């Protein structure tokens, strides 16, 4: 009896070590070349294209949100492309806050991708023709990590400058909640 128990324990141990190792690999993997065209979201703004885009985005989420390099690259681009100019460190300024649970257009990765790529009314510029798709996905993953929606083990936990808030990897997961923007102001009501 005890030998069977040991066997099972051994199988379990091997399986969990395997699972841990494989998830660790995904976290650390780094591709020097972005994915081939085809598995990407287009920049088209039509509703049908957006829906298709969001559906195919699901496949991309794991690639970026569970990968420490992709999320921290997003964090670097956040400063480089001056996202912080309007959204500050995620707490918002002249742009909306991104570390709370309020999403004007939706907090899933595909919608955030489209927001960055195509822009939104009242000030959000379109980056789609300016930066590679790969970088938009990295930014989308980082934006989600601000609200605690990206994988906690992949989210960054350090800043290059003085850390002014809870690190992304310790952010509580904020439940996304889409709010309809007011027709007059474009802001959540």
């Amino acid at each position, binding site marked *: 009896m005890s030998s069977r128990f040991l066997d099972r324990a051994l199988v379990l141990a091997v399986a969990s070590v395997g699972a841990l190792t494989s998830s660790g690999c995904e976290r650390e993997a780094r591709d*020097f070349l972005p994915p081939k065209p085809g598995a990407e979201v287009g920049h088209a703004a039509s509703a049908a294209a957006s829906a298709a885009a969001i559906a195919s985005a699901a496949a991309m989420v794991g690639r970026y949100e569970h990968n420490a390099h992709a999320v921290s690259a997003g964090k670097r681009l956040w400063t480089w492309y001056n996202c912080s100019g309007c959204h500050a460190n995620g707490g918002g300024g002249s742009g909306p806050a991104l570390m709370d649970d309020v999403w004007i257009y939706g907090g899933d990765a595909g919608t955030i991708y489209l927001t960055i790529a195509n822009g939104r009314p009242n000030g959000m510029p379109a980056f789609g023709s300016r930066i590679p798709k790969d*970088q938009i996905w990295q930014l989308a993953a980082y934006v989600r990590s601000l609200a605690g929606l990206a994988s906690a083990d992949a989210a960054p936990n350090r800043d290059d400058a003085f850390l002014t808030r809870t690190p992304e990897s310790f952010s509580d997961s904020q439940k996304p909640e889409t709010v309809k923007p007011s027709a007059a102001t474009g802001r959540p009501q």
Partner: protein
Amino acid sequence: MNGVHDVLSPAGPQAATLYQLWNVMLVACTVVFVVTIVALAIAVWRAPRATERAKPDLDPHPRKVATLRRSVVWGIAGSSVLLLVLLLASFVADRALSALPLANAVRIDLVGHQFWWEARYESHSPELTFSTANELHVPVGRPVLVRLRADDVIHSFWVPSLSGKKDLIPGRESTIALRADRAGTYRGQCAEFCGYQHAQMALVVVADPPADYERWQALQREPARAPETAQERRGLELVEQTSCAMCHAIHGTRARARRAPDLTHVASRGWLGAGAVENTPALRAEWIANAQKFKPGINMPPLDAAPDDLAAMSAYLGSLR
């Protein structure tokens, strides 16, 4: 990247001081090595050997070796004297390194990035400052004070023919002073492991005669040359409208970002990517299309563009002398 990269052929006083120190160390260590090996050979040669007729050594008390104490005392005394000589030589070299006169020095602000060097030539008035990358020019015979900073991780500045090493540490400022007394091109290299492309993080220091240096400086202060042919105009349009302008600056155009090498006079430089690729029209186009092919892990993303467009961008950048 071509250029002299040799500790043993100093081209300035700092490197010459280090070369002298190296010579003292080399002579001292060679003497010690030879003496040690000779002493060892004598000891082996003269060691008592047992023959067939020798009686077995059954004495429980070790034999007293008359010369043991003498050898140890001489050994310690000799090593101490030599170490003191090396200490003194090192002290004298350090004094000489810090005594370089800095009157009328050229001031360069050098920032280490993963994996390239950003150089800003300081001046008393803002319109005279300019920025370049991976290629420093210095006037022969004038001291140069380089202020070292790092943007991301620790790097180290090392141009062996001109000076010793000094680290660039994020959040700290350090300076290194050097002078080139002989015109020439000297190669430098990041000397502190900084990531994937540490090995391809080179720079050149070109020591020009003062008149040439002034001419180079005047050229670098100019805004970018306006495109002349239709292809160059198309190239500028693409540079301004695609991802190039998100990180690079070309003065006099709409590209004004400061996250990647300043391209205002990129054609005046011999190499791209801190010595990764020679700056020729074909290689430049390939570099724009996919720099990761040459230098995997750098921050420059691939650009999905038609061959004609790549050629136009390459032609425009090639015109920026």
